[in-house]
């Protein structure tokens, strides 16, 4: 079902106090695709992600109108918000290694979901660390503190952690900010393969990254969608001059 609408935003408006962060967004993300979101700072990219797993709830000043639906289900009406969040992997722009060992960082989510079997956890930890291209660097020190890793390693650790619950949706908020280009490419390959299993939303400041791996993409500017469509089309025939400017790096 390539055209199945996995995530559906209908007239979603988010305000922080009186400031509008998202202004009536309407769009959908197809299942098992990589959906790229690009746009300048303060255009609402991170807020958009927070609406999906409802971490926006932690911001007391934020108010959300409209509907976000996952598989047709309104996330506002989901009673067990923890189970919702377990279905959605989230990687934040600044690496957040929890003050636990590398192993426990990855095993944290599965443990919360009730997996306690050592063998099963070992398997999950190894799989996720391999997917995030971190395994070779840390396999001999899984039980040392995760926060002692370098910035780039911590970011891959958070990616591993996000993958640990085999989420159906993976949200990446500028995941490659602190990762070298070679490793970034490796992770991009992994993401392309993961697409079979999950829908990936990729917020990125690297326009080439979106061009390389996003199936569809959206250009956000000033809290609103400027243009949305298949990635190749956006790059080849942008309908808006603003899109053209941004994608070619002319917009300052």
């Amino acid at each position, binding site marked *: 079902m390539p055209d199945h609408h996995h995530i559906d935003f209908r007239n979603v408006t988010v305000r922080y106090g009186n400031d509008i962060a998202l202004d009536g967004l309407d769009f959908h993300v197809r299942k098992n695709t990589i959906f790229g979101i690009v746009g300048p700072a303060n255009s609402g990219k991170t807020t958009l992600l927070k609406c999906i*797993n409802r*971490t926006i709830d*932690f911001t*007391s000043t934020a108010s959300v109108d409209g509907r976000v639906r996952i598989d047709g289900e309104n996330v506002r009406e989901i009673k067990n918000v*923890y*189970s*919702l*969040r*377990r279905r*959605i992997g*989230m990687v*934040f722009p*600044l690496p*957040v290694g*929890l*003050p*636990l060992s590398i192993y426990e960082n990855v095993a*944290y*989510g599965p443990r*919360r*979901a009730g997996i306690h079997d050592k063998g099963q956890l070992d398997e999950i930890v190894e799989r996720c660390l391999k997917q995030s291209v971190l395994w070779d660097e840390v396999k001999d020190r899984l039980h040392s*503190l995760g926060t*002692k890793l370098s910035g780039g390693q911590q970011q891959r650790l*958070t990616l591993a*952690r*996000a993958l*640990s*619950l085999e989420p159906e949706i993976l949200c990446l908020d500028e995941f490659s900010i602190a990762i070298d280009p070679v490793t970034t490419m490796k992770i991009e390959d992994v993401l392309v393969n993961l697409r079979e299993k999950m829908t990936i939303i990729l917020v990125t400041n690297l326009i080439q990254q979106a061009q390389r791996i996003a199936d569809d993409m959206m250009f956000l500017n000033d809290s609103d969608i400027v243009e949305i469509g298949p990635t190749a089309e956006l790059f080849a025939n942008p309908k808006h001059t603003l899109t053209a400017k941004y994608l070619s790096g002319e917009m300052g």
Partner: protein
Amino acid sequence: MADGKTSSIRALGSRLLDRAEPLIKGVIYVSGWSSILFVAAIFFFIFKEAAPVLSSVDWGSFFFENRWIPNPADENKAPSYGAAGIIYGTFAITVVSMLIAMPLGLAAAVYISEFATGKTKEILKILVELLAAIPSIIWGFIGLVIMSPIIQWVFGVEVGVNLFNASLMVAFMAIPLIVSISEDSLRAVPDSYREAALALGASRWEMIYRVLFPAAKNGLLAAAMLGVGRAVGETMAVWMASGGTEQFGLLFDRVKAMTATIASEMKDTAHGDEHYQMLFVIGIVLLIICVIINVLSDLVIKGVKKKHS
């Protein structure tokens, strides 16, 4: 002309500052070292007062016998200084008060830091600070006049001033300290940790227990140690609420603490007599206990750091 004047003033200023630099350095240096000097001086004077008796103290009796009779009724008998019951009193009050104060203090800190919002949070913080400002004599008074009959009534015991009462008062005094330091260290944990844990589907409690506590561990330990220090050193409230009988008392028995012994008996001594010197020996033991607690807490905190590196 005016320009020349300001620049010459400025030059003078900077010259003065250059001169003052070593002076400022000196002041800072002296301030730093003075704390060491003070500690050394405290040890020196307390040892000096106790010195004449130190060589003749029967240490076995002091630490292991509960016979504190500085002024025997029978004048032909020698006074006896077995302080085991008094030392026990201090330990018992410390342990019981911490059993009460630590869980309550930590829970209050978690509530203020993680659950309370807006006005509630502000009001609670102010109240906690207010609680910390209540003088210990007031707590002693509350223990003696209010808590004592309540304890007699609720637990059906004969004496209301006892180990439990004193521990309760000390706990109330230590709680604000534990709350405010724990709360500070919980608040110092970056929000990104909270978001990361919650985004993984952890519940609020799992996030606090699994992520916040480990992240704030050093601060929480420091809070606990300060609480212990407070309990060991507290005098007035303990004196008034504990009943003042040196014995290995249980929860509802009278006990007597080292601090209260010094405070209550000092007036009965003549400057420099044996009883006076023995009170200073108790002071030395108290001081050593405090040093041990401090060193231990330092080691514990360092140990925690090491384990994580």
